[in-house]
């Protein structure tokens, strides 16, 4: 036995341990210092807290594919209203009659931050590399329609498509990488993935993983040098920590859950609620005898109290969702809203033969109306949605057992168990509806998680994707939304606003309509290069 287990009183000096500890501390804290406080002048500096960290900063691996990459530019870009505007292209593309050829004229005199000129070669390189199966780009299928990319001289690029793909121009906000740098290295593991060089308004100064990304303004930016000279994105995954650090003045702005944003009302900060296509939805898998039943699906659709969820869980920062398209979008089909009507839902189930048993849970043909509902462990917003859904279902006589898990645990169960999922993409209705609802994509990764299978919807999705006429497309997506009322294979709950709190000294800022995956540069700092801080 060692002596530390029997503790008899003893006598003699013993401050040695404490002294030793102090010595170690003294040497360790002198190590990393050296520089002076580099916080700089407050006006030209902005520090924002974000919840997300990219895996890579290479556009070839998917970074910034939806625009606002800060380090890079795309051929086109989105303005505040999400309308396409030229960026590295001088104007919007010329589209051929059959909708299969897109021609872009490129801006001249643009250079990468290493001083080398930007040409059509870089565009071809970027798209061809992404389309190469050896490149680990998870979003390659988004460019599925592209057959080939061709450079005509230094300043013209032509895209040839396999089939007419109406929303193709929306995909060309994708950032352009320099062929002379990225082309010289392994695309998946090379230096470029962490030390990117682009044409964008900012240059990366440093990326301290898990902590922050530091940018400085590109003085030679073709769109004019940004006023915010130093821009830092602090990566803080924990909402509470982010709010605390914003409160303590450490951050100038941050994305926050609505309930935490509510606490910032002190006059120095402004709160921005960005509208989004970001929905929370319960998947009702076709493979489960309860959730696959159309009557159950419709009853649940009526029984959920979406307004209460918006008011309480989202603190009003959001809207009830009846389908992937938000109610204020021009693509929304008027009249597909469903009012909260518990009685109608109960009547529907009574008529369909789902009778209440002794335990208050309905059953039909020996099948109990009960199913598990999974949410991603640690995601409070999804947890609260799931709990509310379960409470509403319980009033109807449907037992929903809420369970938490990691994706590794949840994914194998998706064909049978309900999941509280999220998604949504504003640029075009095809982007999220096709992958969410197309029967051929059932169970393909996170596509069509509910294994939804509706021939009428399949047909309409295909039509909406290929048709070039807006009215035809509108009609197709109306069909999809009406079919979702008749057979709601997903219970859509809410579209959530993304809430940001920013210091007022940056003036009045704007936000775009945001997708579910709001990467680095969303929120009020989507156009940080245009901010004009007060002196």
């Amino acid at each position, binding site marked *: 036995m060692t002596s530390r287990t029997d503790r008899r009183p003893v006598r003699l000096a013993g401050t040695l341990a404490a002294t030793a500890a102090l010595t170690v501390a003294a040497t360790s804290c002198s190590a990393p210092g050296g520089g002076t406080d580099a916080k700089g002048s407050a006006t030209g500096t902005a520090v924002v807290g974000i919840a997300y960290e990219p895996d890579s900063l290479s556009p070839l691996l998917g970074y910034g594919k939806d625009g606002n990459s800060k380090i890079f530019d795309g051929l086109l870009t989105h303005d505040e209203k999400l309308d396409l505007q030229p960026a590295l292209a001088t104007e919007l593309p010329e589209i051929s009659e059959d909708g299969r050829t897109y021609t872009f004229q490129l801006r001249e005199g643009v250079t990468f931050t290493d001083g080398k000129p930007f040409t059509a070669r870089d565009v071809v390189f970027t798209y061809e590399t992404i389309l190469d199966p050896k490149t680990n780009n998870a979003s390659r299928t988004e460019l599925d329609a592209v057959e080939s990319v061709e450079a005509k001289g230094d300043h013209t690029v032509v895209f040839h498509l396999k089939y007419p793909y109406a929303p193709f121009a929306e995909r060309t906000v994708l950032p352009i990488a320099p062929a002379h740098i990225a082309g010289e290295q392994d695309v998946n593991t090379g230096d470029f993935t962490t030390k990117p060089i682009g044409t964008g308004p900012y240059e990366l100064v440093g990326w301290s993983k898990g902590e922050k990304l530091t940018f400085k303004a590109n003085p030679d930016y073709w769109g004019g040098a940004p006023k915010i000279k130093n821009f830092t994105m602090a990566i803080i995954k924990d909402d509470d920590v982010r709010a*605390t650090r914003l409160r303590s003045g450490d951050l100038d702005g941050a994305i926050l859950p609505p309930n935490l944003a509510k*606490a910032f009302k002190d006059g120095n900060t402004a709160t921005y609620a960005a509208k989004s296509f970001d929905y929370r939805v319960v998947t009702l898998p076709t493979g489960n005898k309860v959730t696959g039943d159309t009557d159950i699906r419709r009853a649940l659709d009526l029984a959920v109290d979406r307004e209460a969820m918006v008011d309480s869980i989202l603190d009003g920062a959001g809207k009830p969702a009846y389908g992937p398209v938000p109610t204020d979008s021009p693509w929304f089909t008027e009249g597909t809203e469903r009012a909260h009507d518990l009685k109608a839902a109960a009547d529907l189930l009574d008529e369909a033969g789902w009778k209440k048993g002794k335990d208050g849970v309905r059953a039909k043909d020996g099948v109990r109306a009960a199913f598990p509902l999974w949410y991603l462990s640690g995601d409070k917003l999804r947890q609260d949605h799931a709990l509310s859904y379960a409470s509403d279902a319980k009033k109807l006589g449907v037992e929903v057992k809420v369970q938490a898990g990691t994706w590794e645990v949840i994914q194998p169960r998706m064909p049978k168990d309900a999941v509280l999922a999220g998604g949504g993409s504003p640029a075009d209705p095809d982007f999220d509806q096709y992958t969410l609802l197309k029967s051929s994509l059932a169970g393909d990764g996170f596509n069509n998680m509910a294994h939804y299978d509706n021939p009428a919807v399949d047909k309409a999705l295909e039509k909406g994707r290929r048709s070039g006429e807006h009215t035809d497309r509108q009609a197709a997506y109306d069909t999809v939304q009406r079919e979702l009322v008749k057979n709601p294979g997903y219970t859509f709950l809410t579209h959530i606003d993304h809430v940001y709190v920013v210091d007022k000294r940056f003036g009045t800022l704007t936000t775009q309509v945001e997708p579910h995956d709001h990467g680095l540069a969303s929120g009020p700092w989507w156009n940080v290069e245009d901010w004009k801080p007060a002196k």
Partner: protein
Amino acid sequence: MADLALPTAPGRVARTARTWKLRISATLVAGFVLAVLLVPPLVGLDEQAVDLGAKLLPPSLDHPFGTDDVGRDLLLRCVYGLRVSLLVGVVAALVATVLGTAVGAAAGALGGWTDRLVMRCVDAFSSVPHLLLGIFIVALFRPGVWPVVVSVGLTHWVSTARIVRAEILSLRARPYIDAAVSGGASRLRLARRHLIPGVLPQAGLAAVLMIPHAIWHESALSFLGLGLPTHQASLGTLVQSARGTLLAGDWWPTLFPGLFIIVPTLAIAGLAGAWRERLNPRRRSELML
């Protein structure tokens, strides 16, 4: 966390103080146990059911502890949370005690090389900080109740093993054991008749003392997001999910679950302290932390 059995001062004043401490502790423990056993079936509510209309109400007569951010009564949540935490604590303490008693008894009774080897292993095992080992186990097997129980049980048997071994060694040194051996008693009989009954009270005391530890560890693991799933009420998950509301200025969802950890812990420790004094009167003034 060190064990909390209350040390006491000698003297008559101290003795009355001790009696009172014991009474209060016992009442509190009985109250908590009754609440935990009776309230859930009496109320008969689905503890997860939310009431979005009643979110974040401050403490009032209707809701003595207020409500949480999805409108659940916090007093009820605390009772449910204590129930889960107590259950985890008791089961984990049992696991640890059985394991510790087995190892300690084996080492003490067999003696010699086995003893040295076993105790070296015990030393090695206790070199890994408890919470870290717990985190390691729970991270790999989560989420759920069982990984927490197993990890707390597996990390806390060491002290019991040491206590039991020491007790066996002291028992073996007593004359009546020698007499029994020379009288031809078998090893098994010796163990059954003399050693095990002598050790059981110490093991039982160790088990009771371990319950607050186990609760503390469960709450720490859950707070770190590694223990129970966050929608399931336990004292740790309650504090964890209250973090956001604390920032918004609503203090009650953080304060009360914390008190629900502290008060039962002190009460159990008070009870165990009295038991230990009865068991080891000689060591009354010796502090065992």
